[in-house]
């Protein structure tokens, strides 16, 4: 086993800030959506906080985009066509069977290669479809008065709000899945610990390679 720095300080701070703001966005969003059934800050305050958090999240997202572009880390988000299906099938097979039999993980993540193929596809959809839709509809709801013609062209505030709410539900489901999958590391808390401390213990290269080959 070797101990490697999996996440830089910036990545960890960014991740936890984003996690916190998204959770708070969901909570305040629930209060705005159903104020009669959920009370946290009160409707007016929840609205203010939701808007402020949304702006913070957008700014944070752009910072992250800049970081990933500048460092080239964005490459690890794109699945490669080569072996895509076999890797995906291996990953699915692992989650459906191998994880229960103690089979080695088909994908060993490293500092420059943190996402398996299923994660890559998921992030690609979330970051390129759900997040933009959430941001755009949120901004349109925020500026519905000033940009009324645009909102009306998109079907009115009703339709815009419905897309926003649907995206929120998808984000909530994504977070549940995301948190659960963090427990599928070498130990249930290995990934979580890495995201907190930055360091993670990985099998040595040979063992990792054999495991990967066996999975294929």
């Amino acid at each position, binding site marked *: 086993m070797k101990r490697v720095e999996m996440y830089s300080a910036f990545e960890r701070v960014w991740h936890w800030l984003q996690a916190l703001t998204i959770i708070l966005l969901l909570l305040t969003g629930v209060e*705005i*959506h159903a*104020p009669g059934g959920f009370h946290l800050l009160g*409707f007016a305050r929840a609205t*203010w906080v939701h808007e402020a958090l949304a702006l913070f999240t957008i700014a944070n997202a752009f910072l992250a985009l800049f970081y990933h572009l500048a460092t080239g880390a964005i490459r690890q988000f794109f699945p490669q066509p080569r072996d895509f299906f076999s890797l995906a099938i291996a990953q699915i097979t692992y*989650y459906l069977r191998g994880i229960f039999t103690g089979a080695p993980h088909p994908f060993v993540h490293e500092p420059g290669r943190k996402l398996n193929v299923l994660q890559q596809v998921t992030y690609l959809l979330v970051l390129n479809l759900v997040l933009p839709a959430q941001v755009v509809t949120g901004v349109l709801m925020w500026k519905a008065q000033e940009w009324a013609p645009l909102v009306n062209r998109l079907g009115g505030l009703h339709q815009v709000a419905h897309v926003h*709410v*649907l995206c929120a*539900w998808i984000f909530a489901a994504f977070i549940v899945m995301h948190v659960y999958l963090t427990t599928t590391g070498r130990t249930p808390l290995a990934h979580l610990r890495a995201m907190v401390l930055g360091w993670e213990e990985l099998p040595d290269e040979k063992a990792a390679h054999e495991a990967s080959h066996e999975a294929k």
Partner: protein
Amino acid sequence: MRWWLVALCSLTPLVVSASETEAGFPPPSAELLQPRPRTPAQPSLHPPITLRDSKGVAVVKSGEAASAERTCDGCHDVRWIEAHSYHTKLGADESTARGRSPSGRAWDFSPGLFGRWDPMSYDLAPMPGEAKFVDHIAEWEKQQGWRHVGGGPAAALVDGNCFLCHLRNADNQTRVGWLGRGLFAWADTATLASTGLATENGERWQWRKERFEPDGSVPAATLGLGRPTDRACGFCHGVVYQQPEPMLLATDPHQRMTETQGVVFSPQRISDSAMNVAGKDTLSLPWDVHAERLVSCASCHFSPNHPAYSYGTGGPGHLRFDARRVEITEYLRRPDHQFAKGQSTQATVASPLDGSMRRCEGCHDAPKVHLWLPRAERHFSAMLCESCHVSAAYAPARQETDWTMLTAAHEARVVYREIRDDRFILGFRPVLLPRQQPDGTRKLAPNNLVTTWFWTEKSSEGTRPVPLETLVRAFFTNDTYRPELVRALDRDNDGRLQDSELVLDTAVKVTVASDLLIAAGAQSPTITGEIQPYGMHHGVSTGRFATRECSACHTHDSRLSEPFVLASSVPFGVTPRLVGDANLVLQGELARDALGRLVLHPTVANLHVFGHSRSYAIDITGLVLLISVMAGAATHALLRVRSTRRRRKEQP
């Protein structure tokens, strides 16, 4: 003092019908019951005037009835003024063929009081050009003159009465009395009763020459001449109360604004009034904040060419303000009496003037005082200020008028809103419905909805309400209910019909009443139901008492969808419909509640209100997705734990 009379009126049941006086005149209104003040000398810049009769001769010489038109015409262009006044014409100048007016009623021929059927008074105005119009107009003026300043369609009978609005102490009570007696020529003189210039003498008035100046003129101060007062507006429009004594009101169909909207134009605080309002001690707000702050009716409903009040726009498009104004002398000669008006659902006359009045935003800089309100501009664009600032009404307001069965006094059965069994007024929250704005947009506006049930027949003149005389002839014999009616309607079998039993809510009852009407001469009588919205734009409260809680609207079961009672009972097989000229949308569903009442469940389908509007399909889809993911993760985790334990056991 006639406090005993006022008190007696307050004790009358609030499910009442206004009884006619012995002479058959309209009953006196609460305003008319106020003690008549004798003329205090009022300062006035107006020069002394010479009261003249219809031939232009000074009345002190001729001894004849005064004519306001001829008296004022020397300096003011009265003909021009009358030609520019929807208060005199009452919509007669907008006449159409019957059935072609905006209301959609087959018998209406104008959008104004003269020609648009009034379901509260059951008044059918005669149509100009029809047979016996002259006879009918006299009868109409006797009955409806209380809300007509004269001139217009009745010009041949009654002069436009300048005195009524321009004398501080105009005696409307006496004027209405003389109109009711058909002594039209003396109506203007009767209006001067409180000045002491003339005294009643049988069917005419005797001028008191000692009250006139030697040259035959009268000082303006004696008359109290000046700009119209709020009191004058109240003669026809609703209760205007400016006395220091605690206010006490009786229900009164002549106080239209109060009767239909439950509002009073008074600076008095509700808690200081003598009204039986539940929880009154906490209502330390004035009946109308504008009355408290000395804003008068004319401040908003001004003369369009008033040099100070007119907008000063309408010139070249590049001018933000047109400094050129009518000279004061020209204005005083020809003050435009097409007063600026709003566009409330009930004010259908003179529609080209809709929205010409100075509304809230004409005086108030709302954004400055709504900094606390999230998305203030969004709120302003989606709803009228009144939606929050007329949050409730605390005077008795009508809920329904039922003419399908008459009370023992031959009047409609009337039900008022939110009156507790012990006669305490609970106050009611107006229903918020989208109103069509002059610019084509829609905004939520507060309304009272008054439902009317009545019989219509297909006569030779077309469809029309069954005349009141026919109803009386059908349902009564020797001033008592016909036995077959009593048999059909007497639920408690006490041999008498209470007001609460005057409901045709079964097919059998409808058939009995219909047969009686046919026997009395009605042709194919059927029951019609109609909903008349009354926009509530008076009775305004300050921010302290306005709706401020977000939860009032931004919850799923908020007031935006709060059920609004339309009628306590429904005639069998009848569904009411909205009058055709209401400029709002009756969004929602009509349904009967557990008590059998007809209730509107409003919706705000055209608006997305956060916290209130939602898509169940999306919420259910999202919830299923979330629960599925959670269940899948939990199941997967459980299986992992079990498999791990099993493997550990299997390992040596």
